[in-house]
């Protein structure tokens, strides 16, 4: 099983320690504010789902958390350190990884090169080889593709590669932006099986998904983002049975 790095939090074991704490974060694209003060918490070994319609601000939130987008207000702390305004590469070296929307594998590079870059800033050559071997146990589809250009693979295989590339850094927290988007149904199942496996291995995950039903099945807690603000937060069961989620996202009337 894939080993997962341990959070640098101290405190009583057993309780879900907060790894990521975001408070009141706002992001602007030019003049337009896309998220209006979002609060989020992810605890150790916790899977938190962030759901919401297209354009609600889910990707904006994840990109701000990992430093790709500047915040104009609010505070982000990760593993007890204030990381607000940090560059994305520094945040990554601190243990947070984002698998971005649309996979964004390096299409001109081979699968092996993609994986190598995922670990390049985090581990030496020997350690990268070891991590890659562990990953290939988890992603057998990639083993026969190592010397292929990533751009020539199917969407599902690219998604596996994109997640694998993130895992090469042994993150303490993984942000997944719509990992099942545009995949064939059996590929969607595979991606969710993988998330469950990662969760079992003790990885903390912040999951953005359009597939709300599946997301709430595997999440501990969830938040609903609507029009750039958190409309509802709670345990996954609470949200799955709430009228708002049932009507707007699960298609139950």
């Amino acid at each position: 099983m894939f080993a997962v790095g341990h959070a640098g939090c101290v405190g009583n074991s057993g309780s879900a320690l907060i790894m990521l704490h975001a408070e009141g974060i706002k992001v602007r694209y030019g003049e337009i504010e896309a998220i209006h003060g979002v609060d989020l918490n992810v605890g150790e070994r916790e899977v938190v789902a962030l759901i919401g319609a297209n354009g609600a601000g889910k990707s904006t939130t994840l990109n701000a958390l990992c430093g790709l987008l500047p915040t104009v207000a609010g505070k982000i702390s990760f593993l007890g350190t204030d990381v607000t305004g940090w560059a994305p590469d520094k945040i990554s070296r601190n243990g947070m990884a984002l698998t971005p929307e649309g996979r964004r594998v390096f299409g001109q590079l081979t699968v092996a090169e993609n994986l190598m870059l995922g670990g390049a800033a985090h581990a030496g050559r020997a350690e990268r080889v070891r991590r890659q071997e562990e990953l290939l146990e988890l992603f057998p589809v990639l083993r026969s593709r190592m010397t292929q250009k990533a751009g020539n693979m199917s969407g599902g295989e690219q998604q596996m590669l994109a997640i694998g590339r993130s895992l090469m850094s042994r993150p303490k927290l993984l942000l997944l932006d719509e990992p099942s988007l545009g995949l064939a149904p059996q590929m969607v199942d595979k991606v969710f099986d993988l998330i469950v496996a990662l969760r079992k291995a003790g990885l903390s995950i912040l999951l953005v998904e359009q597939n709300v039903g599946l997301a709430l099945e595997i999440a501990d807690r969830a938040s609903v983002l609507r029009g750039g603000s958190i409309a509802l937060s709670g345990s996954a069961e609470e949200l799955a049975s709430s009228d708002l989620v049932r009507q707007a996202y699960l298609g139950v009337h």
Partner: protein
Amino acid sequence: MLLQHVVNAISLGGIYALLALGLAIVFSIVGLINFAHGELMTIAGYTTLGALLFGVPFPAAVLLAIATTAVAAMAMERIAFRPMRGASVTSLLLTSFAVSALLKVIFQNGLSARPQPLAMPQWMTGSYQVGNVAIGVGPTISIVISVVALVGLELFLRRTVTGTAMRAAAEDFPVVRLMGIAAGRVIATAFALSGVLAGIAALLWVAQRASVDPLMGAVPVVKAFIATVVGGLGSLPGAVVGGLLLGAIEIGLDAVLPPSVVPYRDAFVLSGVILILLFRPQGVIPAATVRRG
């Protein structure tokens, strides 16, 4: 006769290819066409001249010139371009014009407005016989060095972590940063490589002219720019093909045009370039860049 022309065409094309590659590497990563690339050549030329005047042996002077040019390229990025990171392509382009103009003025006033002779060692100026054709030693060495530089660059880009990160950054720089790789290091390496290539090209260029002058980089940088556009802006194989193509067209026209028309050669060259771009607007080998918002 034909063999001579072919050797000359490849040797000139090789110099253009090295220069075009330097422009393309930087463009592929930061979206900047560095018109001050020509001034890097000038720095290489004068460093060699100065080192030789101080009695530094020729091979050491050459290495010193290449190293100095690499450092100068990195300094250029730090001082002029880094503060502009995130600016539009046009602002970056104007900045590079400003850097180029400023350096030219400094060279003209601080060094000498006139060309200075810079003689290459005797053994580089001779020729050798292939059958009954005399082939210049200079152009031959130039070809060998260009090939070695190309192979070296290819190995760097394929075999090293930093080289791989640079190829990835040309596709999608934000994701490279998401991997934890510092942007500054990738960019500094791109500029250093472009400096090394400009230094090598400058030495080959100077070897054919036996002199240096403050404006020596002006013409080659325009040629290199044309080569990158013909090859496909930001595409590294394109830069090599564009450079070789341009060298071949120039030498070919020199050979076939009647003497009275030769002064207008560049007009023919540019017409040819426009013709190529009409049929292949993205260049001969378009870059595979994915730019996302």
